[in-house]
Structures are given as C-alpha cells and as structure tokens.
C-alpha cells in the first residue's frame, strides 16, 4: 500500500485518495467548509490548505491526491497563518448575527474561529449587504450575508437529489446562492441543503427560532415516515421533539433524509396521551390515571377472554417487533381473538432515492412475527366490514395509526367494547371505552425491520411521562390481571425468547443490534432498491 508522511508520521492510503481522506482516517484535524465526504470536491473555501514539500504553494488537502512519498505538514506556522488568514477573509462580510442565528452553537464558523483564528477584527470598511431573508422554497430560508459560498448545497442538489435547482449567482463578494428566476427549491430532499450548510445561511422553516441548538438533547432513532427506516438523530427538549436529523448509515440512507420524513418530527408531540382516557356511554372521553384505566380495561376484557366469539384485535404497523410478539402471544393466550388485523397509514409518494410507498416503518417485522405465530391478519377494510356486519363485537386496538380513521371509528362506535392502547389521540380514542397511554417510537426500546429487511434499533430518547408506558407493558399488565403471567423481566429476555421461539428470527441476534442495524437473511423486495 502506498504511504505518505503526515506531520512526521507514516500514513498508508488507498490509491486515488486525497490528503484529507488519509488525514481524517488518522484523526488529524484539517479544517474544511466546502469539502463533504459524500459530495464532489470543490476546493473553494481554502480552509484545508496544507503544506506539501516540494510544492510551490500551500495545497488544498481536499483536492490534492495523495501520492507515494509525499511529505505533508498540517500543523506548522505557515499552515496556521494560512488558516488564520482564510478565516479572517470568511468573516470579513459576516454579519454580527450569532444571537439571532439558528446555527449558533453548531456553526463551523464559530468552532473554527476558536480553533484556528482567535484574533480580533481588523476590518474598518462596511460589510457588504445582501438579502437576508430569501425564501428559496417551502422549507428553506436563505440568508446571503451569512453564506460562505462553499456550494455544498448546490452540489447536493446536483449530485444527490439529481435536481439542479440551486446555483451560484454574481461574482466576488457579491456571490450568492439562489434558484433560477421563477423557480423554487421544492425538491422533496430540499432540507438536506440545510444540513450540509456549515454556517447559518440555509435554515429550515420548521425549526427556525424554535430552540437553540445547545439546549437540545440528542438520541439515536429511526425515521417513522416510511418503510425505508432512515437512521435519524432525535433532538428534543423537555419531552418535545423539535427536529429529526439524518444519522449516517451507509447501508440505508448514507447521510440524507427526505423532507417528508423530517416533517414527522411532530408526531410524538401532537395529541400525546400520558394518562388514561375513559368514556362512559356516548360522552366524550375523560382523563383518569393509569391504574384506573387499567382496571377499566381489565373489566371490559375479562368477559371476552376465552369467549372467542366476535373479538377483534388489531396492531399498528408502527409497532416494534417486540410489541408484535407480545401482542401475538396476548391474543392467542389471553384474548383468543378470532379476528386479527394490522392497521397502518395509507401508501404515499415514492421515488428511487429514499422514499418508499409503504408509510409504515415495521410492516416487515410485524408480518414476520405474525407469520411465525400462525396469526393470519386481515386488513383494515376487512376489519371494518366485520364490524359493520356484526361478526366483531369487541375490539382491542393497539396503536392509533390507521388509513381510514374516521370511517373505522364510525364503524367501531356500535361495538360493545373498544379498548385502545396508543400514544396519541386519534379517531379510535374518541370511540374507545378505555384508552391506555403508550409511548411513541422515540421513547420506546424496540426493533423495526425496514423494507430492505434490515433490523434497526429504536432507543429511549427520554423517559415516558406520567402513566405512559410501552403497549407491550400494558398488555403484560392486563394479561397478569386476567391470570396469564408472562415472565419477561427485561427487553433482553423478551428478545431472547423471540430469537428462540420464532423461526424467522432464529438466525438473527435480536439482542445485539448494532447502531447501524443488522441485515436479516430474508428475501428483499424489489421496492427496496435505492439510487442514493
């Protein structure tokens, strides 16, 4: 393998790599704005200049190919001078905006100022004024004064979104990013430009002025927007989710996330239930505590248990594999329901990048569990039909996601018993006799299987509030009240049982899913293909 000398240390590299790629692998810090590991090289910010012996000038590390025997210095005075000077130039026209800038706290200009410049301003001229509030598209706002014209956003649109909606206009210190006259940045992947923007020039309309970056707490999760299951960071504060950002995963979404997925950030917040709802007669549901709600649910389900006649149980396709297993055992051992249904959101838009038509993140997982448990679920239409025809008289609905919410709720209104477990108040909660508070996917410890048949782990970003707990915990509580004791003291024991009991998961280490997921040895459907 060829090698070069980096700050006196011998570093191996693959032929074709650049200096910055070799340095990044060696954890040698070279600052950069325009370079992005997943975009083409522009070498226009000049922040990554390094000294290469025998080269007449400093060379941009992001563009200079590593060659055998090359001697590179990244820490000497000459390089540091260049970094200071380049950074000073970048700040010449930068507005005094940090207190009102959404990027503040996660801005590379601030970070690099502290690391590489640390000198007071020498500018006495007026700063160049440019447009400060340009609505580039439905979700993206552009502030030209803050822009360092690194063209990462332009390159993202050209190369990844394959939709050249952005370009650089004008020259010199009047350069700015924009759309061609009469067009807007309305690509379904437009918000990735906000992520790749190293400064506060591009900001997202859904996050603007909502929270300061340093107040947010971050957890790892998976997007619930569709069956792709893009890996995300969940940023929340005090139990309110403010944004979803892509998390790197080479096997799924690389570093990207669609706008539609990002907009699901509000699902865990909207109509959140943290206490039980109980409804008497035709009245509206009233709030009560979890213990009373559980008692009520048990009273309602007790006469049904083992009766076996006219009892339906449905599970949302947003449930985790673990929840699906407990649900499956519950309906077999406790409820002996004769109608099993899976409910989920209506298919939506798709493309050849990330989005798939199925908007339910765990169809593959739930279906695999049900198949192994010998449960033959019907769809939502069939469930409605059976309710209308009177075959179904009682209904246990786990999860609030449905395709025909109001219609289904109207059909369910006539039922004698509707017990609901959900984290948000939807149409079913309005007709249920009891609704027990569950937790959303950002507060759940569980596993989803995406369309690529990849098992990915959800983590608890923040603890459930009040009486809320995962739906499988409620099902276990109800089961124990009805005389069936399940012994799964922890998620690990539950997962171990799934591994040992279900043939589909026998080869899978469900207990040890790494942060980027595990590919399951299942047949991958054609719609899983992606050009990302």
């Amino acid at each position, binding site marked *: 393998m060829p090698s070069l000398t980096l700050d006196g240390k011998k570093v191996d590299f693959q032929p074709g790599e650049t200096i910055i790629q070799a340095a990044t692998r060696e954890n040698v810090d070279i600052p950069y704005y325009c370079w992005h590991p997943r975009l083409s090289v522009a070498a226009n910010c000049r922040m990554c200049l390094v000294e290469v012996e025998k080269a007449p000038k400093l060379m941009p590390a992001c563009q200079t190919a590593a060659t055998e025997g090359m001697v590179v210095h990244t820490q000497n005075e000459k390089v540091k001078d260049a970094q200071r000077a380049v950074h000073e130039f970048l*700040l010449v026209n*930068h*507005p*005094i*905006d*940090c*207190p009102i800038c959404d990027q*503040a*706290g996660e801005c590379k*200009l*601030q*970070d690099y*100022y*502290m690391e590489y*410049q*640390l*000198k*007071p*301003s020498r*500018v006495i001229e007026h700063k160049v004024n440019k447009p400060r509030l340009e609505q580039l598209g439905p979700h993206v706002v552009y502030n030209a004064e803050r822009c360092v014209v690194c063209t990462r956003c332009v390159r993202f649109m050209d190369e990844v979104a394959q939709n050249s909606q952005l370009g650089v206009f004008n020259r010199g210190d009047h350069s700015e990013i924009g759309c061609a006259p009469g067009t807007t940045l309305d690509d379904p992947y437009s918000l990735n430009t906000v992520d790749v923007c190293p400064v506060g020039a591009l900001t997202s309309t859904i996050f603007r002025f909502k929270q300061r970056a*340093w107040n947010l707490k971050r957890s790892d999760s998976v997007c619930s927007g569709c069956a792709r299951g893009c890996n995300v960071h969940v940023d929340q504060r005090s139990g309110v989710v403010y944004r979803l950002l892509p998390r790197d995963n080479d096997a799924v979404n690389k570093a990207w996330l669609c706008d539609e997925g990002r907009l699901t950030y509000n699902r865990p917040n909207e109509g959140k239930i943290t206490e039980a709802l109980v409804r008497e007669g035709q009245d509206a549901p009233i709030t009560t505590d979890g213990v009373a709600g559980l008692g009520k649910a048990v009273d309602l389900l007790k006469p049904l248990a083992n009766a076996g006649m006219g009892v339906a149980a449905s599970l949302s396709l947003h449930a985790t594999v673990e929840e699906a297993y407990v649900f499956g055992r519950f309906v077999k051992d406790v409820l002996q329901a004769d109608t099993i249904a899976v409910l989920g959101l209506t298919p939506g838009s798709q493309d050849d990048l990330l989005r798939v038509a199925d908007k339910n993140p765990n169809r593959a997982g739930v279906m695999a569990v049900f198949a192994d448990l010998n449960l033959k679920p019907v769809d939502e239409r069939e469930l409605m039909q059976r309710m209308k025809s009177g075959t179904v008289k009682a209904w246990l609905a786990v999860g609030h996601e449905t395709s025909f919410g109001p219609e289904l709720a109207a059909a369910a209104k006539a039922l004698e018993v509707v017990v609901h477990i959900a984290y948000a108040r939807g149409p079913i909660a309005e007709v249920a006799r009891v609704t027990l508070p569950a937790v959303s996917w950002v507060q759940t410890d569980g596993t989803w299987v995406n369309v690529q048949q990849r098992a990915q782990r959800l983590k608890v970003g923040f603890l459930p509030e009040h009486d809320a707990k995962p739906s499988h915990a409620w099902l276990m509580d109800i089961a124990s009240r009805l005389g069936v004791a399940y012994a799964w003291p922890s998620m690990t024991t539950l997962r171990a049982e799934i591994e040992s009991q279900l043939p589909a998961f026998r080869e899978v280490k469900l207990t040890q899913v790494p942060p980027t997921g595990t590919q399951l040895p299942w047949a991958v459907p054609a719609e899983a293909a992606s050009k990302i």
Partner: protein
Amino acid sequence: MTDTAFDLPTRNMEIALGPSHPAMHGTVRMMVELDGETIVKTETEVGFLHRGFEKESESVHWAQIMPYCDRLNYVSPLINNFAYAMALEKLCEVEIPERAKYIRVIAAEISRICDHMTCNGAMGMEVGGFTPFLYMVEARELLYDIVEELTGQRITVNFARIGGVAHDLPPGFAGRCKEALNKAFKLFDDADALLTRNRIFIDRMNKVGRITKEQAIAYGITGPMLRATGVAYDLRKAAPYDVYDRMDFDVPVGENGDTYDRWLVRLEEARQSRRIVEQALAQIPPGPICIEDPRFVLPPKDEVYTSIEGLMNHFKLIIEGARVPAGEVYGYTEGGNGELGFYIVSDGSGKPYKCRVRSPCFTAMQLLDPILLPGNMISDIVPIFGSVNMIGGECDR
C-alpha cells in the same frame, strides 16, 4: 476511692448535640457519651450541608464554578475564588498580571481577617462572652463593606477570573481600606483586651483540647490549628504564590496546641494580615488586572457588539466554556483554616472532568473524636469545636 464513696449504679448517658443547635456552627451532629459530665466518647457526623459541589462542578463550565466556590468557606469566599483560579491558571499555563496578583493578596488578606474575627468572636461567645462577639462581628462588617466595594457583594463575590480578577480597585480604595482597617482593629483590640488576659477565659481555654505537633502532622492538619502546636508552616511562606514573597510578615506559632493557643495564633495572624494589606496597598503597580487571552477570557464588550470575531469569541466562551487543556493539577492557597486546595482534572472540554476540594476544616474535624474531645467536660465541647472553626460549606462541600 475512699470508703465513704460507693458505687452508684450509673450508666453512661448518650446525648445528641445538633445538627440543629445554636452552638454547632454550620450543621453538624455529635453523639456524645457522658459519664457524669465527662466525655467518654463522641461520634461526630458531618455532611449535613453537603450540596454536591464536586459533582455539580462536572456539569457546569469552568467559569460557572467560580460562584459555587463562594459557598465553600463563606466567611472568606475570596480565598476560595483565588485557590480555584490559581489551579486553573496552572493548568492553562498562564501568568496573571502583577496588579491582579496584588489585588488578590489584598482581597485574600482582608478575607483572612474576616475569617479569624468570626472564629475568635464566636469563641468568646462560646464561653459566655457575648460582647467580644459583637465587637468582632461589627469589625468584620466594616471589612465586608470594603469587600463589597471591591466586588459588589459582601459574600457571594464571584471575583476571580481565569487570568486575573473581575474588577480593578475602585478609586480611593486604599484610603478607605486603611480607614476601615483602623476602625475594625480598634474593635478587634477591644475584644482582645476583654478576653486574652481574662482569668475566666484563660481557665476555660488553657490546656483544653490539646494536640501535639506529631498528632497534628499525622492527621494532615494545616493552618492556625497546626501553627498553634508550634509548627511554623504557612503556605504563604513555605510555597509563596502571588506576591507573598515580597511581603514582610511573621508566622505566629503557639506552644501547647490547645484552644487558648489557637485563639492567640488567630489574633496575631489577623494583625499580620493587616500588615500585608498595608504593604500591598503601598506597592501595588498600575496595569491590567486580567490577561488578554481569547482562549479563556471574554473579549471587551465593544468588540462583542461591533465585530463578528468578538461576538463568536464571547459566544463560544459562554455557551461551551473556556477549553482548559487536558491534564490534572493541584492548586493551593493558605485559606483561613489552612491549606485550601483544588485538585482538578480536565479532559480538554469546557467542563471539569473532576474538581475535588481539599478543605482544611474537613481534615481538622477528624481530630474531634479521637483526640480533642474525650476526657474533657461536656461544657468544653463547644469551645473546642469552635476553635476548629468548622465551616459547614467548606467541610461538607
């Protein structure tokens, strides 16, 4: 035992002193086992004022710890500030300006006087003399006024910064400071005259609560308690910091290591501190009061408001904290009660990885149960305990 005496079937009595008791300064509890009025055994319990200073420090920025330091030894908060700042400066490898060193010496010595006045005043009260306490506290209040003039607060001063101090001496400070010292020491001398040669006071204090040199050293005792045993160990002389090497002052020592010697040592130390303050006020040079290092010190406000460089600098220092280089360090000063040290570990981030306080009175409190109290009378507990000068905030952290 004479033949007229006979064994009464008595049992030892256990009484609980504190934690809420007017004589238990701060909050401390002693389970005292008494045979008649003689102390057989005591069990001292500290920690009632524990606020988790060290753990809390790990979750805030370096600069945000400064006001927490005020709440350690709250009678001499400035010394705590300086001890913490000195530890950080050692780690950051910065040298503070001359003027800042002088300001630190002046402020620290005023604090030491306050500390000794409080302890000795309370010691008079402990044995029934309320007047000297009022004199001493009134004197201390005059000095607190000076502290307030300098820092803006009597106690919660938040005055030190990495690389210097927060404010310069206000105009005319030297004159007012000397005037306050004159007034305060007049009261101080009155209290001294009321007690030091007082027969009753001497009887209560002399040869009570004795420790030897060897015991004191073995237990790691520092400060006036150590010096009262005859060991002339004072960090300002033994390992001079700031500008103490330029100051002419004596280190008073006792002979017997008893409560009376501790009283005398503190009296004399306060007088020596006054000498230091007066010398420092005379010598203090003009110049900056803080370093100008953008890595640790906030930029001037006009730069923050008018340039992006200044704003970013300010922003990063406030939001993420100054990045103190990775490493570990022990910084120390001679506090009111002895060696006040900060052991700090940095992982290079804006917050400490560990911030441990070596508090002098926590060490001194160890002596109570094994050496100081057993064998004494119950009425001696309070003066002996008072002479240890346990400050809850510092001991319990």
